[in-house]
């Protein structure tokens, strides 16, 4: 039973680890989009 659990734990851990990496990358994508959108809006308002 412990051996089965070990392989299960290994697979689950890898899934969560890869998922964490994906979320970390997407977090940067969201961050850059929000910052760029907000800064564009602010500079357009200044020009007006």
């Amino acid at each position, binding site marked *: 039973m*412990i051996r089965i659990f070990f392989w299960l734990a290994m697979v689950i*851990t890898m899934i969560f680890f890869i998922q*964490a990496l994906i*979320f970390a990358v997407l*977090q940067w*994508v969201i*961050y850059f*989009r*929000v910052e760029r*959108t907000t800064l564009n809006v602010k500079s357009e308002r200044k020009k007006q």
Partner: protein
Amino acid sequence: MIEFVMIVTLISIWSSLLMSSITLGGAVHFWLEHSRKIVDIVPLKRYPVIMIVVPAHNEEVVIAQTTQSILKLNYPADKVELLIFADNCNDQTAQRARTVLQLPKYEKRKAKVIERHGSGGKAGVLNDALKMAHGEYIGVYDADAMPEKNALYFLVRKILENPTRYVAAFGRNKTRNAEQNFLTKCINQEIVVTQRIQHCAIWHLFKIGRIPGTNFIIQSKYVRSIGGWANGALTEDTDISFKIMQSGKLIALAYNSEAFQQEPERLHDYYYQRLRWAKGNYQVVLKNFKYLFRKSNWRVKLETFYYSCTFFWFNAAIVLSDAIFLANVGFWIVHLFNPQVMIPFTFGESNILIAQLLLFNWLLMIILYILQITIAAATQFGQATNKQIWLALASYFTYSQLFIIVSIHAVISVALDRLLRRDGTKWVKTKRFAD
């Protein structure tokens, strides 16, 4: 047997992580779509009449500011009626609200203060307001919740997208006193995650909304048809949210609608506020638990399942895993002085790899927790800072652990209320601060 207990605990924690991952995935998808959107304030097709209700019990410190913020809302003045209920007050709440209403610039506004002496708490106030409501919608703002200028506009704009199906719309609430101390900073982070991650995710994935108690509007005719709010309910907002979903209607998220509210600055106030919320939510879950096994709306089943898992199953797993951790630490310390004493909860010396894998999982849990916070912060301009990450790490080991104590206390309290037929609806008022 010990190995079995540990495996069950770990599977429970993985299940909890899976639910968090689904929520985080939904939120990320939502924000990838919305992070490029520029929201303009354009005239609405129509402006329904809104009756705004402010239930206030001994709120003299904050009521004047809230009243002014509501009267300054970017919404046609003739379409807003404001009712401030000074509910069983023994301070200057009514007088301070009247002082604002008597200012020359607000003379012609449809606004009044009602000094109420009745029962039922906030739900009682809302039911009294319902009897007087002739507007199409009732809006609710807590006495400490200052709405942003366009808060009501965004709520109405959202509801008008589908007024037949959307009987309510809710916005978000920001913390006014976030920088006051460590506790308020942690509360602010928690609220940002709840609103930018959880609320956005469950609306985006399942069209499920949760009325937050403040900064929301709801169709007056609909509330009358379901018999109003549950008098004396500790969390009347959760209770009515379930009723709305049960009837097949929706509570729409207006993510741009913002209000600023005060959070507890002292641990005592925080603890009893959260205890009330936990007790109220347990009561609603127990009331709706039967719908998991009967014919009912799938959203009610999903929410009941989610609340049941969070408040019962996952809490039990966290308590068990903390107990295992503390037991192992205790026995390890004893083992240093007496090598014959063995550490109880292990997989044996031949399974060092499993122990290392489990340690890595524990680190992954912390990483997922921090990711939720950093993603939530990234959705707001200027909020994604290194300070937020350090605060998240500190709060994981301190603030977050408080919930375990709160939920155990709440479970025991709800059980004792039922066994001893006590009135479990008494609540401790949260102290307000001048800011």
